């Protein structure tokens, strides 16, 4: 059992929905980034999703693209991201951390070395956007063997025929992408998302968390009410882009978390 499995079991026991917050590691700089991440659990975040910066984030909209560029310009590397998790774990051994990003920096480091380092640092799960089930042998299966959750994206284009393939080898939770599109783009609609989440839940016992296109506490509440939880990324990252003070960023995260937890 990973921290992710324990967290969802605890939320289920309390009858609570999950709130997942995404921030880019090293954005706007390593120090501020660590300060923000350390503040997330206190702001009501159940699971932290940490972006690993990449030069070519094909599934991300402008907000996350720019966050990655800021981090890279500030000298963020995969090693520094791993170090950041290690530093976070000095004061928090409970909150699950999921790393989200693209395959090349991991492949470049070497899959076995990356997995050993990730486990050592205290990472619980991975979301790698450009590794569909067809490429499971690359990282998904080795990651599960190393004791990490491999969280898969399901999307509006994942039809019933394909869904079992997507759910096989998925662990931790299922991340339902609410729209066809990139992060921070169109607004997610609870009326569309609800039936889709039900369709997925009919095929799996894993929690189904919804992300993409959720920006406000009201939206977080509406989406979380038809799923097991909601993810907000771009709306938080936008505040970092605007160089808002960390307490202000965390206050907004708190309002989002409260929204999701009201559901």
């Amino acid at each position, binding site marked *: 059992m990973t921290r992710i499995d324990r967290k969802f079991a605890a939320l289920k026991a309390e009858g609570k929905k999950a709130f997942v917050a995404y921030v880019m590691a090293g954005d706007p700089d390593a120090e501020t980034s660590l300060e923000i991440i350390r503040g997330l659990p206190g702001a009501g975040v159940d699971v932290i999703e940490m972006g690993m910066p990449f030069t*070519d984030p094909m599934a991300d909209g402008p907000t996350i693209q720019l966050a990655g560029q800021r981090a890279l310009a500030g000298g963020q590397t995969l*090693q520094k991201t791993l170090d950041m998790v290690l530093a976070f774990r000095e004061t928090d051994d409970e909150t699950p951390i999921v790393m989200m990003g*693209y395959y*090349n920096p991991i492949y*470049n480091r070497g899959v076995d070395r990356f997995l050993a380092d990730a486990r050592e640092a205290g990472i619980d799960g991975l979301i790698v956007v450009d590794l569909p*089930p067809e490429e499971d042998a690359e990282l998904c299966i080795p990651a599960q063997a190393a004791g990490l959750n491999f969280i898969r994206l399901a999307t509006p*284009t994942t039809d019933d025929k*394909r869904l079992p393939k997507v759910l096989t080898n998925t662990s931790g939770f299922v991340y339902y992408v609410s729209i066809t599109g990139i992060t921070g783009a169109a607004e997610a609609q609870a009326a569309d998302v609800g039936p889709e989440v039900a369709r997925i839940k009919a095929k799996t016992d894993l929690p189904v968390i919804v992300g993409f296109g959720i920006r406000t506490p009201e939206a977080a509440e509406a989406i979380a009410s038809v799923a097991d939880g909601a993810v907000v990324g771009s709306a938080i990252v936008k505040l970092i882009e605007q160089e808002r003070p960390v307490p202000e960023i965390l206050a907004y995260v708190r309002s989002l978390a409260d929204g999701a937890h009201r559901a």
Partner: protein
Amino acid sequence: MAEDLINSFMTGPDENGRFGMFGGRFVSETLMPLILELEEQYENAKTDQSFWDEMHDLWTHYVGRPSPLYHAARLTAHLGGAKIYMKRDELNHTGAHKINNVLGQIILARRMGKTRIIAETGAGQHGVATATVCAKFGLKCVVYMGAHDVERQAPNVFRMRLLGAEVVPVTSGRGTLKDAMNDALRDWVTNVRDTFYCIGTVAGPHPYPAMVRDFQSIIGTEAKEQMQAAEGRLPDTIVAAIGGGSNAMGLFYPFLDDKSVNIIGVEAGGKGVNAKMEHCASLTGGRPGVLHGNRTYLLQDDDGQILEGYSISAGLDYPGIGPEHSWLHDIGRAEYVSITDAEALEAFKLCCEQEGIIPALEPSHALAHVMKIAPDLPHDHIICMNMCGRGDKDIFTVAKHLGVDIDTGS
């Protein structure tokens, strides 16, 4: 794999879209059902005679195929060695080989009921070819082009707009070809129902590398027949320039199992293939990685971040290369070399002066390598190089590098 190699180099990719370890389908889940559908539809079309009848009709009457195989007699005499032939794909409608592939993909898109075509372009040749075929069929066309390229390739931007395409300048990342491809993928992921992504080279997720190769193979198939007619035998060496590698793959593929034929791909060496990375030579200066849906050789830093390539030729300015080339490189069936900007410019000038052909900067790289090897080869050694594009689009760049003011001519 080893057994396959003994029998044929032409059986790839496998059912997972792999050429050895290269290729694959590294895309987001949203796109996965789309590329599986594309693969199925392409497999159907490939064995459907009516599909190829339509292709050949348009290749003949719209593109102007077959392109000539031309004996470059003065250049041969000038270099004093091997006998040099040029496959004249620069004479195609729109001025390059790009349209061979675009026709295939757009006919396929029409069969699939898609009404909106998107494409990425660097130098603008693939964008112009796509805009052209979309105009011919009355399809909506959106071309993504790096903002930097929009600036340096203004004539092609105007051509695309004349042809009714919407040209979107890409400012994400550093505004180059790879960023244009990222934005095209972002468009596709957003407009999954009505949109067909027409990729311009032998890269991207399976089935694109194989499909684009198959459409471009008309180059090598014709060259082989034409060489038989002219010389009664196969060429000894075939040479082509490589950015993503579609003109090269098109020439090479029909010759892969002809073991007597030396195959040489020429990458853009920019200012020199060294640690400063001011080049686009992915095979000679990069290492394997995953980008844009496939595993292949890439220019990248120590942390796996993708680097920008550099070349005088905007058409070669891409930090990756088609996965089949990576495989041919690793197994040694083809040789890959690089040519610098300065060497390509020399070849450009020589071709104008000796043959009355203004070549594009891309095939100028191939020609520069021919200039290096031809003098030391015997007179009965036959080289066939792919003149894959004409140089009209490049005269401004060349003038700048030669220190000529094109408005005053001095």
